């Protein structure tokens, strides 16, 4: 990709420092919570971007991977006392495996057809988890209270550790995405996005690279799922497997700019505070106003800024130079 300029390094370092000292200066727990959600959705957006923005598979079923991650670690913790950090890793593996298993038969699907297949996949997984007695069915799982500490991935007295852990996760996923985008694989992904047939003719193993994109994306999304379970300490299919979460993830990537490393982060920093604040201010009465505004916003973004704001941002930077 493009060379990183000194200016970009400087702004990156400044952003990093600001994020690091944010929770020390602003001790309001709601503000910290919004930041944590921003990191989490930013990470899911980055994961979606690897699959959708680079490899051209528009998935509306990311929530299934999120839920699988949350459920795997939580179930292993409750039933077998497996440490959540190991659960995090295993959840990622399970999600990647499921992603490959469903991705293989879908390897010829493109565009709309893939999008609807991913919705169908998400709904099947949700229905199954809603009825699967072993993992609590519709009642969900409550995580046991363990003693606080990094080892148990559980903190009761403060949100700060969660804040830094989720920020680290976001940085990890950004690194993964950056490495992919600059590697040969990134070019393969983009070739596949442009045209299956041309990519095939060029000798790219389309089916394999699509599976790789799905698996990486699923692994990262499942990590966010495990984090959510450890953060909220209660999960059920209605909170970790609903279609709107998938749509939110797609929207974040689209608003920020699909196919650029930082796009989803920009999308999340705009959208998550808006959706959280409208939810808190307007959503508590159950009148639907918050979602009404949200739906209107989605429509506006798709009509007027479908290529994302990140590109706009970069162009502005160039012009001022």
């Amino acid at each position, binding site marked *: 990709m493009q060379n990183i300029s000194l200016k970009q390094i400087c702004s990156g370092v400044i952003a990093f420092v600001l994020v690091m000292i944010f929770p020390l200066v602003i001790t309001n727990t709601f503000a910290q919570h919004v930041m944590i959600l921003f990191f989490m959705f930013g990470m899911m957006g980055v994961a979606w971007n690897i699959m959708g923005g680079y490899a051209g598979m528009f998935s509306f079923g990311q929530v299934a991977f999120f839920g699988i991650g949350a459920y795997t670690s939580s179930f292993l913790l409750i039933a077998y006392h497996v440490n959540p950090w190991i659960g995090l890793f295993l959840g990622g593996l399970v999600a990647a495996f499921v992603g490959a298993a469903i991705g293989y038969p*879908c390897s010829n699907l493109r565009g709309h057809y893939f999008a609807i297949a991913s919705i169908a996949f998400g709904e099947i997984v949700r*229905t*199954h988890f809603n009825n699967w007695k072993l993992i609590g069915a519709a009642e969900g799982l409550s995580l046991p209270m363990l003693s606080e500490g990094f080892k148990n991935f559980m903190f009761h007295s403060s949100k700060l550790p969660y804040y830094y852990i989720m920020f680290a996760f976001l940085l990890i996923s950004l690194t993964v995405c950056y490495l992919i985008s600059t590697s040969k694989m990134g070019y393969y992904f983009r070739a596949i996005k442009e045209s299956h047939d041309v990519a095939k003719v060029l000798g790219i193993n389309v089916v394999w690279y699509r599976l790789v994109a799905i698996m990486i994306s699923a692994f990262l999304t499942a990590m966010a799922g495990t984090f959510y379970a450890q953060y909220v300490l209660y999960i059920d299919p209605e909170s970790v497997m609903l279609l709107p979460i998938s*749509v939110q993830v797609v929207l974040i990537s689209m608003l920020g700019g699909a196919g650029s490393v930082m796009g989803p982060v920009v999308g999340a920093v705009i959208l998550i505070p808006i959706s959280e604040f409208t939810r808190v201010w307007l959503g508590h009465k159950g009148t639907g106003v918050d*979602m009404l505004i949200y*739906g209107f916003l989605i429509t*506006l973004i*798709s009509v007027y800024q479908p290529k994302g704001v990140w590109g706009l941002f970069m162009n502005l930077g160039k012009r001022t130079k």
Partner: protein
Amino acid sequence: MSEQLLQQLVNGLLIGFMYALIAIGLTLIWGVMNIVNFAHGDFLMIGMFTSFWLYTLYGLDPVFSIPLCTALLFVIGVLIYRFVVSKVMSGPMLAQLVVTFGVSIFLSNLAVYLWTPDFRLISKPLLSGTWVIGEVQLSIPKTVASIGSIITSLFVFLFLKKTKTGKAILATEMDREAALLMGVNTERINSFSFGMGAALVGIAGAFLSTYYYIYPQVGGTFGLIAFCVVALGGFGSIEGAFIAGILVGLVQTLGGFFFDPAYKYAIVFMIYLITVWIRPQGLLGW
């Protein structure tokens, strides 16, 4: 056991005809302009609420409010096409996918805002009760709705094959550029097809309101099932959507009967995955 099975078959057929009618509108929109309308289920919801309010406020029975539902949904469809969908037609595909999601969330929550998320039911519709034929119970509103679905589908089929506008729609579906060169105003065809797709689901909504719960989120499941029906029938194929609707209705009830009712929708989604895997063009697609 066999009576139960027969009853399930009949139930499957009756819901299948409704799926068929809903899916025909969707496949029309999809076929003509290659837009996946995620707000289709919400159009259904608006149709149901229109019929509910006409009944509650003015005592107009759902059977008689069908023309009004159709006209209203046609207008809503055209407006949404003009002000939203047409703007993304030349944009990136991701925006085309996401935009109708936005419309869907907007419409269903507008309904929550205006009418609360409560479940409603039309208390004493003209059509009610059941016919008992042998061992099988036949719900009258469902049967009438099925007949309505058959008549409407037939009408749509004839309209597309016989009239000038219908032929223009089919031509646009086959090859937009060629149709444009032959003097078809494809932009008008788009907006007309979108309106017609919405109007068809409005008819389905009016029929459905005679026996189904009416609430703002009712469109969600119906909309998703309609996608599976469209895929199974072949994208853009009216006949395919009709046959596939009936098949999906049967599979859903029989799957629930033999397997587990909780999984009946999951089975339908499974059909979608299997269809696009084995026969991506659907039953009657090309």
